[in-house]
């Protein structure tokens, strides 16, 4: 029973973290039709930034968090302005370039901070809540809460602001969006900043509880793509739903079996969904 | 003798009924027109006939054989070949290759063709392509890339590709759109020649003048239903056709 509850809480946190990463990826795919393979590295940069500004420079966790969002958002803007915008000619171009960015960011992190990473980010919420014999670290509850706040904020942003409408409009119908006077370039730029910033936020949130390494983005991006496919590419609601389903599924199987079995089962779940509904849980049906 | 028949075909998209209980019989050796105002369901019906959509209810028969839920390619091999609105071609390939592509699936061949082309196949293909180039009056353009042709030439090439698949029923989706008057006249001649050769033609078309001139039978659709069907003369005189097509004056 206790184990079950612990596993449920762990699932909730895993869901929260992966939802934050995946939403950004889905967002950028929806608006720009780019599969950003470097998204996991933005998460990694977020964790490093949280360490560098928060711990190394001594700014504290809050400063580290803000810095993580800002640094990753700036990298996102850079990618849009200097790379994606110049790559209209070959539709596969952005994909290759994101892999290039991935390699550069990994190498830069390894070079700047070393591979033998023992970087520690201290959570402002040390210790654990103890309820009925179950210990739940405060920071994990904080991650869940922060993810709900961030995703809620994102929903509010997308539903109630002009920017949000414009962003969704661009994702749904580019020409019609232009006819409303929406600048696709400006929206792409902001979407990229938002997407990258969310990844950075996720990195900063997870920094105190995961191991920070230059390669920490790799398993994340694989999970993220599985989740995106599960949810149906381009659908934010689908992405969040799928993040919760997948992470819970994965956490339970790794708790009750082991994580290799969980990986295999997760992949089979994705394949199963694709076979039954080739456009993902909430994707639009398409003709083959 | 109907070569193509639709029985009680209905297609719904979500709550919207695009095609509503349509019955259609196409007699062999005729040119059968399918007209109606924009949004009347012509294109949906066309897609149902060619297998791009499967009807919600109802059946489609080709030569008496039911093909309701078979694939487009299956129907094409059975002799039901369509063309497209706009210019759906193999744009980077030459005109001659475009036509040759039309016979890739339907010409006979063996697994040996997977590794090299047999002399016989190549010879037969070149012969057929030559005939079609002449027929479509594209001989001089045989080595031009399809994307460089004029709009009218592209439409004709689309038909030539379809003919290369040796159809018994040729479905044309708005073939006259965007053609000059002289191009239209030439295409009318072509279609008449196609009918002469025994191929049935079904066409969806907006250009009433040409449809009236060309078709043996015309079916008029409005709001997804058959409004009326008959000879051009019948359709022309039908009062509801006029109001449907011209719109009601406000």
């Amino acid at each position, binding site marked *: 029973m206790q184990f079950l509850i612990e596993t449920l809480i762990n699932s909730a946190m895993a869901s929260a973290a992966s939802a934050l990463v995946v939403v950004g990826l889905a967002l950028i795919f929806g608006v720009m039709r780019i599969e950003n393979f470097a998204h996991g590295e933005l998460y990694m940069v977020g964790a490093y930034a949280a360490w560098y500004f928060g711990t190394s420079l001594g700014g504290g966790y809050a400063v580290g968090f803000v810095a993580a969002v800002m640094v990753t958002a700036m990298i996102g803007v850079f990618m849009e302005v200097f790379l994606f915008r110049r790559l209209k000619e070959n539709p596969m171009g952005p994909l290759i370039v994101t892999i290039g960015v991935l390699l550069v960011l990994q190498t830069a992190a390894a070079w700047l901070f070393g591979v033998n990473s023992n970087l520690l980010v201290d959570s402002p919420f040390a210790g654990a809540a103890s309820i009925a014999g179950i210990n739940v670290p405060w920071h994990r509850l904080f991650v869940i809460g922060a993810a709900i706040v961030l995703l809620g904020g994102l929903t509010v942003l997308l539903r109630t602001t002009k920017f949000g409408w414009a962003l969704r409009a661009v994702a749904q119908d580019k020409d019609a969006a232009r006819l409303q006077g929406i600048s696709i370039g400006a929206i792409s730029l902001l979407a990229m900043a938002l997407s990258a910033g969310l990844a950075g936020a996720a990195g900063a949130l997870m920094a105190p509880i995961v191991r920070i390494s230059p390669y920490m983005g790799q398993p994340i991006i694989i999970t993220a793509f599985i989740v995106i496919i599960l949810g149906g590419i381009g659908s934010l609601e689908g992405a969040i739903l799928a993040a919760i389903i997948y992470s819970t599924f994965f956490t339970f199987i790794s708790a009750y079996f082991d994580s290799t079995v969980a990986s295999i089962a997760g*992949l089979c779940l994705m394949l199963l969904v694709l076979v039954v509904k080739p456009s993902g849980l909430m994707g639009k049906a398409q003709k083959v | 003798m109907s070569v193509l028949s639709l029985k009680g075909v209905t297609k719904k998209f979500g709550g919207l009924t695009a095609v509503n209980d349509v019955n259609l019989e196409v007699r062999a050796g005729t040119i059968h027109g399918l007209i109606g105002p924009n949004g009347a369901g012509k294109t949906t019906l066309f897609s149902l006939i060619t297998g791009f959509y499967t009807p919600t209810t109802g059946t489609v028969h080709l030569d008496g054989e039911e093909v309701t839920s078979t694939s487009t390619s299956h129907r094409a091999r059975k002799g039901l070949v369509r063309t497209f609105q706009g210019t759906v071609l193999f744009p980077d390939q030459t005109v001659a290759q475009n036509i040759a592509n039309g016979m890739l699936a339907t010409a006979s061949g063996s697994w040996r063709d997977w590794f090299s082309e047999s002399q016989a196949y190549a010879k037969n293909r070149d012969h057929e392509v030559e005939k079609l180039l002449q027929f479509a009056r594209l001989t001089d353009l045989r080595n031009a890339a399809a994307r460089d042709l004029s709009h009218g030439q592209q439409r004709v090439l689309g038909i030539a590709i379809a003919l290369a698949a040796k159809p018994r029923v040729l479905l044309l989706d708005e073939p006259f759109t965007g053609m000059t008057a002289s191009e239209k006249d030439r295409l009318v001649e072509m279609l008449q020649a196609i009918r002469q050769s025994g191929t049935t033609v079904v066409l969806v078309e907006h250009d009433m003048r040409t449809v009236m001139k060309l078709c043996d039978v015309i079916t008029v659709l409005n709001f997804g239903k058959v409004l009326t069907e008959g000879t051009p003369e019948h359709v022309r005189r039908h009062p509801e056709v006029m109001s449907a097509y011209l719109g009601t004056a406000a």
Partner: protein
Amino acid sequence: MTSNKKAGFGFAIIAIAAAAIVPLVAGDYYVSFSTEIAIMILMLSSYRMVVLTGEWSFAHVVLQGVGAYTAAIMVKDWGAPFPVSLVAGAVVAAAVAAVLSFPLLKMRGFYFLMGTFGAAEAIRLLWRKFKYFGGTRGFSGISAPYLEVGPITIDFGHPASFFYLALAIVVVCLLVIWSMEQSRLGQIWRTIEQQDVLAQAVGIDTRRYRRIAFIISAAFAGIAGVLLAYAFGSVTPNRFNLNFALYLMIWAIVGGTRSFYGVILGGIILMGFDESLRFADELRPGIYGIILILVMLFWPRGIERLVGLDKLFAPKAALPDSGSLAASTKGDAR
């Protein structure tokens, strides 16, 4: 035969001859690297068959792994000679691809890409999981073939001998792949890639021919896997992970998939770059990444365009740009 084709054959013969003198002038290190390149060329050329039908796959590397594992099991459990392993590797890889093709080919575009990743990664994890496949350690000690015909004995354990063996097999495979591309089958693939609705309209069963491409390309990937297993004597599950699938895709795109030689050129140039960057030690991946970005920014349509020979090997007409992945995902998201 057109003059272009003649020139193409000329180039091919020069290239093969150049490859053949590598062991005469270079040390084992370079010979072994050349073997690696030869195997990768076979991978790329067979990968291009799938690309010709308008899809990008992440499963190709794992299908190579199927070939390699088959060879390892044939050698370890059955003591099979090299030719038997070679055939078995191709057949088993093709069979696995045939099974996978049923669920996978229902998908298109990015869904297909991720579907292939899912299936491939699941297979790879099964290798890790099951002791029959050697678990996380895989197989080792797959000894190179040894040929003894009368007085002549050739030990293919010498890098140079094995290089010639691999080169010969790869050249034969490339010839087969090339002639398939020229054949009616190749023309059908090309129609599917260029305009698959029109292909269907004239009677081409696009799913069937995509499946054929997937299966045949898997057979060649299997052969490449067998060569890999023998060349390096060991098979480990990590060798077939996503990174390698990504690299395969990168090489193909950077080289350009319009022409037969584009992917080959991409593979040789990028692998050469990677190897020549060794002086940079741990900075190597970053420099490689910068090169990728620069190549895509300045020659977005691949190296084949840069060389300007792209019509040479392209049968009859140039192909459209590689890029159906992003193009088809556009439709998907609607």
